[in-house]
């Protein structure tokens, strides 16, 4: 055996081959363990484990065979491997009938495969009809075939592979997107493995009589096993971080074991054992902690998803409940108004006052329900806006006038300031923008007991128009300010009974944002507040 190149040297180096075998075995057994334990009842997982194990026997046997020094022993090993190869493809055939989906198979076909495979295996092992013996070559031990037997053997294997692939391709159009991706991965693995074997273990030996490169065919099994495992596994099972950590840890351990086995002195043994003893628990801890982290993250993702669904359901519930509430409220409003209208005759003034209060309370309920419905419509983008150009100053003036009487009754200094020469054309839904401005003004008037409320329209820069309401009310604490524009948030400070529905400012925020603007407030406890919004100015 003369090694002329570095690669040739590697191919002939028993230690290099042994190291490769150890890596392939470790990696494959780790994958088999992972897949098998992930779902022991799944037939696809079972057949994956079976075909992978039989493939490993092939790979390991091939190594022992090629480096044998005893031809009689090699002949026996060679026969066992060739029988094992038959079962590799039989189990692959069964695996492919269960993955990506279970296929309808005929019991007859299965029986035929099993019986013919068993017969051929017996023929291979116990007769010389397929393999007659073995011989030493430059690149390791090579089986000596019976020409006819070899042909039969190859035809059988080719038929098995052909029908496996045929099944797969026939089923392919019926698969869903995820299954198709899995089938593609598997097909890719099969292509690599089969091509490598066809070239290095069939074509080259027949054409040149040389078994050089037999390793490429055998060791490529690990690619097929890996891609098959990857296709079966769910994303959680082969989470990149976990896999990387596990593979790295395993690689370190294997390297250390190999170093230990190759130790030349007792001191080396001592040091290598020491390092191994330290690194084994360290590796286990590392893998565990990464797993925990990944699990927590997945748990968090699940919870987030669940919360989102709950949020959607809550919105639907609010929307349906709000709608259902309207009918009884309509009846309350209707009957009371009929009494007030004198439909049942005259009633005492006091009764009218009380009924008036009842109507006000009921109207508040109706408004609240309307607000809730508006919110779900805006949030779901179902509210249709009638956008148009209008002068914000006019809208503000109208809203200001609406609250003038109320403010003056409270003795407030209630002022309107429209910046001189201010051009305040904005593109908005008139009714909705009126709702926002009157909401701001109404809040200021409601919460301010004495002092001033100033309503202003300003143009802070040539592209923006600003609406402001400044009051000398109780002010809002910084903590409350943060939550003020949230849904259902209501101030709970010393303002006492004067609480709203907790929806007005939230709706204002949704609307102003929908109109391309922004809004906010600045306030200091005990000194008053300023609520404002800004909208893009339309230049005419």
């Amino acid at each position, binding site marked *: 055996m003369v090694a002329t190149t570095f690669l040739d040297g590697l191919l002939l180096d028993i230690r290099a081959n042994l190291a490769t075998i150890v890596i392939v075995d470790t990696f494959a057994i780790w994958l088999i363990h992972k897949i098998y334990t992930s779902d022991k009842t799944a037939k696809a997982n079972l057949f994956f484990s079976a075909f992978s194990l039989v493939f490993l026997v092939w790979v390991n046997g091939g190594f022992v065979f090629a480096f044998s020094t005893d031809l009689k022993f090699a002949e026996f090993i060679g026969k066992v491997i060739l029988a094992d190869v038959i079962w590799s493809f039989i189990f692959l055939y069964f695996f492919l009938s269960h993955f990506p989906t279970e296929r309808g198979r005929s019991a007859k076909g299965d029986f035929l495969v099993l019986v013919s495979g068993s017969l051929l295996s017996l023929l291979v092992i116990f007769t010389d009809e397929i393999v007659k013996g073995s011989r030493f070559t430059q690149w390791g031990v090579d089986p000596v075939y019976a020409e006819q037997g070899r042909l039969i053997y190859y035809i059988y294997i080719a038929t098995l592979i052909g029908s496996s692939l045929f099944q797969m391709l026939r089923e392919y159009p019926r698969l869903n997107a995820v299954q198709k991706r899995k089938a593609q991965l598997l097909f890719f693995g099969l292509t690599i493995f089969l091509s490598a074997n066809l070239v290095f273990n069939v074509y080259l030996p027949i054409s040149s009589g040389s078994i050089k490169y037999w390793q490429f065919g055998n060791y490529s099994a690990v690619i097929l096993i890996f891609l098959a495992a990857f296709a079966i596994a769910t994303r959680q099972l082969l989470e990149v971080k976990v896999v990387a950590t596990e593979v790295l840890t395993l690689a370190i351990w294997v390297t250390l074991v190999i170093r230990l086995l190759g130790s030349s002195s007792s001191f080396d043994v001592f040091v290598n054992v020491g390092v191994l003893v330290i690194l084994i628990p360290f590796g286990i801890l590392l893998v565990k902690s990464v797993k925990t982290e990944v699990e927590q993250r997945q748990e968090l993702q699940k919870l987030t998803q669940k919360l989102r669904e709950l949020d959607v359901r809550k919105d639907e519930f609010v929307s349906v409940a709000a709608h259902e509430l309207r009918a009884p409220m309509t009846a309350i*409003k*209707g009957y009371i108004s009929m009494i007030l209208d*004198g*439909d049942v005759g005259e009633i005492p003034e006091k009764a009218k006052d009380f009924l008036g209060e009842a109507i006000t309370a009921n109207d508040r309920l109706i408004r609240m329900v309307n607000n809730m419905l508006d919110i779900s419509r805006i949030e779901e983008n179902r509210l249709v806006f009638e956008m148009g150009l209008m002068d914000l100053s006019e809208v503000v003036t109208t809203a200001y006038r609406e609250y003038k009487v109320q403010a003056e009754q409270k003795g407030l200094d209630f002022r309107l300031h429209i910046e001189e020469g201010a051009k305040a054309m904005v593109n908005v839904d008139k009714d909705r923008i009126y709702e926002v401005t009157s909401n701001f003004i109404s809040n200021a008037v409601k919460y301010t007991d004495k002092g001033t409320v100033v309503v202003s329209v300003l143009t802070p820069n040539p592209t923006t128009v600003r609406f402001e309401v400044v009051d000398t009310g109780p002010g809002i604490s910084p903590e409350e300010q943060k939550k003020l524009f949230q849904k259902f948030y209501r101030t709970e400070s010393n303002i006492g009974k004067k609480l709203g529905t907790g929806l007005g400012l939230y709706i204002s925020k949704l609307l102003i944002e929908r109109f391309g603007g922004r809004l906010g407030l600045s306030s200091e406890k005990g000194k008053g507040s300023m609520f404002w919004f800004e909208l893009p100015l339309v230049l005419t």
Partner: protein
Amino acid sequence: MAYMESDNAVILIVEDDDLLSTMYKTKFESEGFKVIVAGDGLAGFEMAKKHLPKVILLDVMLPKLSGTDLLAQLKKAGELSKIPVVMLSNLSSEETIREAEGRGAQEYVVKANSTPQQIVDIVKKYL
């Protein structure tokens, strides 16, 4: 308070909520109207054919045949197509309102925002 000029004018109320139909019936009767009530869309259509009311008050969310579908059928049904229809619903989304008006409703009234008296006033406009 009776509305003398349209004495005994028949008003058809198509409304599935008894609470509300009873209330509107009471109000309209106290105003001197003759009121008939249908509890679903199909019954509404049959009653309209049979009684030829002067005005129809029509809810939107109705069993068997929705208010907007009934409206479309009425507008295709020869003589019935001339009867003014006032939609009376608690659905207040713009889409629903536009759809109803597009199909020929005279007016769209949101129940929760109107008193029975206001609805009577609206109906009187179409007599």
